[in-house]
């Protein structure tokens, strides 16, 4: 009967920060947090999904120029960034695991590495953007190097897709930074609180989106 709505006595036994007053127990709270974040991630799939739909339609309408344009992206930086993100995905997953076991030092270290890798990703991305602009690879450039009009469709999608991904990365880094600081001050219980787990899920999702952006933007149109 852990599900009774008003078990005030039970709630009092728990550390005050871990359980919000409107939940009856930690398992209910954990379920709510997990479900809330997963639902949010489902909406994120559809958010990026609109872009994937546009990519799909234009790849079908203008296959030639679209993939020719794709061959102009900086594949080396894109691939290095893929490796960086995969590694940060590993450290984030380990941080979640360590948090579940209340291993304070490990969590701090792993989140720290994750943040550094995320920053490295953004730095590489920034350098890549600089190169792209240097090569006039943006649709409004008067010296846009590709002839076919549809090449500009690809490059528009490139900027929006990578830009939104970078925004998500930045948000994720902000979340990690806050959690790292809170964990350093030991202001919440690592295993009872959902924070690290939620941030880990979000980070893995951002990682996951990149797994699709990488082939769409960097690997497409390279063969032959």
């Amino acid at each position: 009967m852990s599900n009774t709505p008003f078990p005030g006595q039970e709630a009092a036994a728990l550390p005050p920060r871990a359980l919000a007053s409107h939940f009856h127990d930690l398992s209910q709270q954990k379920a709510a947090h997990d479900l809330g974040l997963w639902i949010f991630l489902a909406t994120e799939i559809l958010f990026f999904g609109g872009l994937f739909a546009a990519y799909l339609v234009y790849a079908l309408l203008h296959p030639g120029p679209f993939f020719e344009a794709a061959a102009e992206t900086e594949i080396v930086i894109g691939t290095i960034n893929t490796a960086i993100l995969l590694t940060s995905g590993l450290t984030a997953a380990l941080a979640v695991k360590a948090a579940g076991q209340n291993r304070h030092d490990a969590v701090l270290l792993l989140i720290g590495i994750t943040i550094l890798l995320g920053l490295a990703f953004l730095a590489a991305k920034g350098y890549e953007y600089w190169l792209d602009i240097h090569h006039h690879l943006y649709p409004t450039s008067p010296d846009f190097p590709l002839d076919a009009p549809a090449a500009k469709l690809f490059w528009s999608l490139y900027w929006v897709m990578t830009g939104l991904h970078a925004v998500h990365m930045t948000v994720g880094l902000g979340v990690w930074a806050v959690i790292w600081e809170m964990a350093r001050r030991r202001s919440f219980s690592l295993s009872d609180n959902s924070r690290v787990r939620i941030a880990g899920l979000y980070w893995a999702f951002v990682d996951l989106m990149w797994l699709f952006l990488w082939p769409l933007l960097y690997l497409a149109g390279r063969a032959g």
Partner: protein
Amino acid sequence: MGEIEIILPQASVEAGSTDGKLLGLIIISSLITLLVAGLVGIFAIRYRKGSKASRGRLPAWFDSDLELGWTLATGGLFVAIFAWAASQDFALAVPPQRATEIHAVGKQWMWKIEHPGGQREINELHVPVGETVDLVLNSQDVIHSFYIPAFRLKQDVVPGHTTRMRIRPTRTGTYRLFCAEYCGSEHSAMIGRVVVLSKEAYADWLSIQPEGGDLSSEGRQLFVSRGCAGCHEGSSKVRAPRLEGVFGGPVPLADGRTVMADDAYIRDSILQPKKDVVAGFEPIMPSFSGALDEGELVALTAYIRSLGRRDATATGGTP
């Protein structure tokens, strides 16, 4: 050219059948509305608080059978209405045979019409009664929509697309032409008239229009003056495909595909020559995008079409 008729006449083949469906829908939905409103009203009076009406348990069949019955009945009815509506002969679909083509260009905020003989008009469309006319629609700026209420037809005019609307006027008269897709400040001023004339009157009307020059001969002039003829004509080294007989037939492409040489293909080939290169030729043709305006494109296309018609009579169908 009489006054515009304000009671909406049925002036096209579609008008009659659309109105039939409309009437059917009005009858069906009025009956359903009356049924629902009637039942609500009757129940409200009969079962008002304190009335003597019996309020025993509902009979067993009421709960499940009636619900299921109503669901199936409405479902069946709706599917039947769909089938009836979908059975209409959609002139909008791929035109089965070629018809007189009149080009209309929508721009903020007017309609520019060009007849095959080169006659031009603005915000007015003259068509002969009893004939099939394909309106070929392009937009120079935003989305417009070519709407003739008396014909019960409208078709959006989308920049970057060529859309078509087949009209089959059945009744002479003057009817309204509206832009039905919001297009900016003077959207409500983008209106005009459609004048359906008898065939003789239409011929007279065409003959008294100022000489616009025949569309395809205008195209022929452009074909020479813009240098197309230099490669696509004459017996010099074969740098480009000859265009006689091309229109309306299949064209094998360098990448193995085959496309149908229709208006859209011709336009594409002029504006984006590297998109669909004909098998056996090098992609050396420059793009004429920006070098030709909408009217010149239409004329060039008309010329190439006229080249094709000589020996392409058997290839009327499109894929």
